[in-house]
């Protein structure tokens, strides 16, 4: 722990012009980004980084890109883009050792809950009856579980009879599934059309 005198010195250093060059040194900036990602307990958005670093986003993105490559070459850590921000994580190859030190995150999702979550992710905002129409079975338990886990949230009500709740995925959903944003989800059509073709083939074979 720093004593008061040292704190003041540190504060002076932070505020002084020596620490923050008039025209920011790229090397220094890159190190600063590294520090910010290290201390942050959640993904840092580009806007947050911009607010702290006071430089344009193109520069930040370029420097993060460089950092990512450097980390890939030599580090046990990696910088990933997740939930609309950047985060420092351990490399998957090292998971075995890390999990010996600390338990990995434990979320148990049943097949039904995952299915429900997929429907919400692709069709959000969506109501409870609409989910059940697609799945063909009662989905209350799944929705309750997903709400409990903070993977989905209520974002409003549909102005239709009964004013049902509208559900959408949360930032935590992106984080837990390692998604940059919702657009990173592969288009659902690729799976749907594949199945549709298969079905048609089946019915044709049956007919002949």
């Amino acid at each position, binding site marked *: 722990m720093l004593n008061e005198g040292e704190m003041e010195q540190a504060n002076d250093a932070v505020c002084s012009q020596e620490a923050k060059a008039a025209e920011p040194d790229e090397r220094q900036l890159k190190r600063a980004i590294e520090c910010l990602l*290290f201390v942050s*307990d*959640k993904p840092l958005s580009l806007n947050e980084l911009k607010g702290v670093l006071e430089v344009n986003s193109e520069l930040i993105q370029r420097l993060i890109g460089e950092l990512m490559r450097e980390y890939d070459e030599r580090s046990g850590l*990696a910088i*990933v883009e*997740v939930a609309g921000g950047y*985060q*420092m*994580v*351990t*490399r*998957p190859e090292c*998971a075995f050792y*890390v*999990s010996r030190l*600390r338990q*990995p*995150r*434990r*979320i*148990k*999702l049943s*097949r039904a809950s*995952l*299915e429900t*979550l*997929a*429907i919400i*992710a*692709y069709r959000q905002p969506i109501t409870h009856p609409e989910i059940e129409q*697609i*799945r*063909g079975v009662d989905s209350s338990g799944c929705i309750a579980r997903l709400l*409990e*886990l*903070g993977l989905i949230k209520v974002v409003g009500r549909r102005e239709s009879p009964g004013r049902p709740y509208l559900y959408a995925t949360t930032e935590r959903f992106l*984080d*837990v*599934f*390692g*998604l940059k944003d919702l657009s990173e*989800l*592969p288009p*659902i*059509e690729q*799976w*749907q*059309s*594949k*199945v*549709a073709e298969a*079905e*048609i083939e089946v*019915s044709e074979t049956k007919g002949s």
Partner: protein
Amino acid sequence: MREGDGGIVSHAEAVAEKPERRLIFTAPYEPYSFNGYHVRISIFEGPLELLLYLVRRNEADVREIPLAEITSQFLEHLQLMREVNIAITSEFILTAATLLYLKSALLLPQPEIGEEIEGDDGPQKLSEEEIKAMLTRRLAEYSGYREAAEYLQERFERRALMFTRFNDEGGQVGQPEVVELGSVSVFDLIWALREALNRLPDGSRLRIKRRKVTVAMRIKAILSKLRSKPSGCAFWELCDDCQTKLEVIVTFIALLELIRQRLVTAEQEKPFAPIVVHLAPT
């Protein structure tokens, strides 16, 4: 058709032959062992599962099966058992629910080929191809999400291998602690509640005493009040010291009692005027 030859007689035929006749399906008929709960209804006697099997094979008409009767019989049966046997009960519920589903499905109007159904653009006719296409579309949509669920599972597993910083509590930073509730039953909750109640200090129990009020007490009060006011009182003045509805009611009964015993008189100048109560002249 004779009894015992293993054939199935529909209810209608059975009634035509002999109204009180019951069909008893015997062991040789059973395709495999049914040993669950036995039902006893007019058209069938035997294990409920067998009934479901017969319905599925179209050998018994689900519309002829009185499900309410079966259920109430089962409930009686349950009351006879000392404790609820979860295995038997859940098996019964599953079978009965399946029968109920089959029965209700028959009652719902089904869009038939060529039949007019209400569409978004008013009534429209669906051809066999269109119905097939509609079902295929829905199936395709659903299957797409199943694939998507698998994709999410893979993403999750990959992401779980990448650790973020730990906070001091030992969990991962930014991850709210998740309490696994999966293995908690209602009985655990009841037990927890009892424990919590036991831990309450004894002093936390409050006893609220109700003020006791009797007709005799109110008679005394009315008489003393009227003695102090020779000019008489309105009824509401007699209730001045009442704190509850019950006390007002008891006061009113006391007043009626006093009037009956001719100890007080009540006067009213004209209809709807206040009623004034006096001590009766002795």
